């Protein structure tokens, strides 16, 4: 189709048909402020901040929902446009609490930034304030409806990307609120704690449950031996909290920063990611050999686990019984590690740094206590860690790189790629191939399972038998794959990650997390993999030693006791 010519601020612009005025302006390097708009996710024209003048139109038009047309003449910067945008923002602010000084999103809030950019210097309309109370019922997230501007970005993500529909617009008029049905507490509905809503919220109306105080407290307690584990995806995003580029691999500085904060040992979840490959890989081979339940589905992602428990309980037997790497780590820290280090298991405190809000819920599951203590004590998101480092005055980008502690800090490239969609599958294939064929893999990279496509399939020949693998990320895509399985598709192994992009796009990651940022972090993950000396889980010497000295063999008695779990069906409503 031929392209469309229009004029924006006296510039001739040529774009594809179907482009919106907003996109056309962006392509031409002209900035139009937006608030409710979120590319590919929320394009509903609700806030009317993005208004522009279109010659011949009676009123100002919302550029985010106005398609371009041939010969259109647009002005984005007239006195009227600026005044009306400003007034619309002032109306939104009229019932917004003026709490920036104490707000968790301060300096990272789109509303705050917009108020500054549009030059708001006084509150003109002081309206009635919403009387809805904050909701602290969820283990992962806090809802603060007073700060909600009803942009609906969160409900779009929850409905269209995750297809959970835990929250939506309720009631009407001044009482309108974004909440679960019947305004029930978030912790009591089928919300999976993925935090994708928090990731897209422009304000502090939905945010992670802040547990930094608990960690400060225990770091100051000399009787506690405090160990920390870092998830694979954190090393490629933590830099963003300090102005570095997304995808910049900051493993060494992350370790240094955690030591500076006062952790007694800095370990790596990548270690138990390698261990997961040993357990889950063997589980897969066993199920294939013994005619067990197939396809086998991965169980690393706690949002995904809660989703299947609520929405597909009949498919729970497909799940791997492996705990997630975070939980395997906790169980080992409080058994194997304390035994080796000669520490009383009651005196060790395990903190996780995760890209994920659902990990907070997972750590609190009561069955996750096989060491005799809760496996993991506190989970902090990447964002919370960033805040702690700032509070401690640690200049992240000035730190010299340091190494993880042994033995639970030893890992491989296969462990790192757990942080991206397709990574668990690729790591499993690297190991399964060599275990089954007894030969060395000719090429380590499985490109078919990489990238941001929603559902990715691959078939691998293992000594004559074909292994059909499929990878999905984002729960909407997960649902598609489950329906394919129900319809009789023959898969052997399925990797599912709750969040779009996998953990690099997790609900606890720095804001913004959009497509471009996800791509950069993903590239960072594969760079980190390339940079590792060992890139296959079964070659991790610390994992080999763990089996030799403590666990025995994969799927052995001790493994079952410490590293495996069970699931529970939950109601949908």
């Amino acid at each position, binding site marked *: 189709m031929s392209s469309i010519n229009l004029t924006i601020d006296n510039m001739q612009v040529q774009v594809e048909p179907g482009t919106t005025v907003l996109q056309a302006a962006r392509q031409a390097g002209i900035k139009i402020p937006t608030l409710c708009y979120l590319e590919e996710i929320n394009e509903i024209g609700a806030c009317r901040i993005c208004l522009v003048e279109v010659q011949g139109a009676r009123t100002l038009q919302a550029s985010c929902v106005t398609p371009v047309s041939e010969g259109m003449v647009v002005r984005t910067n007239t006195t009227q446009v600026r005044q009306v945008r400003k007034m619309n923002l002032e109306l939104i602010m009229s019932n917004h609490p003026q709490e920036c000084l104490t707000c968790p999103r301060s300096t990272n809030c789109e509303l705050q930034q917009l108020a500054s950019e549009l030059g708001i210097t006084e509150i003109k309309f002081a309206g009635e304030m919403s009387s809805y109370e904050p909701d602290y019922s969820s283990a992962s997230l806090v809802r603060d409806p007073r700060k909600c501007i009803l942009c609906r970005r969160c409900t779009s993500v929850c*409905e269209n990307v995750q297809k959970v*529909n835990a929250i*939506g*617009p309720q*009631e*009407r008029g001044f009482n309108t609120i974004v909440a*679960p*049905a*019947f305004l029930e507490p978030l912790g009591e509905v089928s919300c999976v704690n993925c935090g994708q809503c928090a990731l897209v919220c422009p304000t502090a109306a939905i945010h992670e449950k802040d547990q930094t105080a608990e960690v400060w407290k225990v770091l100051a307690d000399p009787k506690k031996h405090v160990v920390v584990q870092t998830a694979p995806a954190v090393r490629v995003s933590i830099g963003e909290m300090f102005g570095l580029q997304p995808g910049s691999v900051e493993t060494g500085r992350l370790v240094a920063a955690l030591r500076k904060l006062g952790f007694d040992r800095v370990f790596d979840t990548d270690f138990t990611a390698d261990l997961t490959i040993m357990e889950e890989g063997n589980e897969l081979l066993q199920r294939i050999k013994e005619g067990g339940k197939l396809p086998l589905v991965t169980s690393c992602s706690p949002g995904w686990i809660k989703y299947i428990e609520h929405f597909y309980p009949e498919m729970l037997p497909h799940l791997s019984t492996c705990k997630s790497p975070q939980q395997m780590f906790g169980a080992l820290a409080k058994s194997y590690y304390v035994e080796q280090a000669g520490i009383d298991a009651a005196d060790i405190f395990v903190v996780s740094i995760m890209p994920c809000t659902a990990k907070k819920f997972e750590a609190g599951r009561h069955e996750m206590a096989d060491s005799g203590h809760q496996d993991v004590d506190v989970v902090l998101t990447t964002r919370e860690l960033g805040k702690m480092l700032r509070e401690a005055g640690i200049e992240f980008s000035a730190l010299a790189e340091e190494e993880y502690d042994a033995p639970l800090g030893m890992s491989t490239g296969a462990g790192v790629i757990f942080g991206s969609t397709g990574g668990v599958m690729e790591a499993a294939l690297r190991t399964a191939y060599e275990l089954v064929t007894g030969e060395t893999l000719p090429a380590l990279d499985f490109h078919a399972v990489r990238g941001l496509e929603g559902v990715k399939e691959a078939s691998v020949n293992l000594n004559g038998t074909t292994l059909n693998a499929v990878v999905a990320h984002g729960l909407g895509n997960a649902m598609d794959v489950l329906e394919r399985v129900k319809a009789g598709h023959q898969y052997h192994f399925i990797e599912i990650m709750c969040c779009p992009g996998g953990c690099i796009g997790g609900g606890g990651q720095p804001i913004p997390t959009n497509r471009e940022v996800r791509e950069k972090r993903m590239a960072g993950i594969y760079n980190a993999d390339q940079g590792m000396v060992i890139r296959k889980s079964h070659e991790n010497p610390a994992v080999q030693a763990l089996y030799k000295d403590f666990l025995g063999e994969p799927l052995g008695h001790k493994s079952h006791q410490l590293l495996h779990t069970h699931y529970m069906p939950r109601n949908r*409503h």
Partner: protein
Amino acid sequence: MAEALTCDNRLTQEYLDIVDEIIKPYRGQPGNLIQVLHKAQSRVGFLPREVQVKVADGLGVPLTKVYGVVSFYSLFNTLPKGKHKITICAGTACYVRGAKQLINQLKEDMDLEPGGTTEDGMFSLDLVRCIGACGLGPVVTVDDEVHGKVHREKLTKIMAKYKEE
């Protein structure tokens, strides 16, 4: 046919069966949500949680959406209606002639608010748009009986009469 429910919050199996009947032709058709809610309300009298859950699962609509619709449109109610249904005309004429004071009076005397039902399940109150009896304003109807030119004492008397029944 079962009579519309009044004061009890729990639904009997009979009503749940009726709701199932209503849903049946629309199974898996999310587009018919409002229509189905209408039918359910006209048979059951109100839309408690369990009815909304049935509609959600039956039509394949998320419960969040069902409640979103029910709580958005004022014609849907989630609480049972009282044994006697009071309506007060909130048209301009009735309003300027004292409808507002009558609404306040019901709030003070019986803790009854528009859209609500009294504790004992005897009365529920709704506001209606102009019913075209402006000359008689303010107009109060109780069930099918219309009372015109209502003022404080008259309203007290009317309520007393129904309470005695």
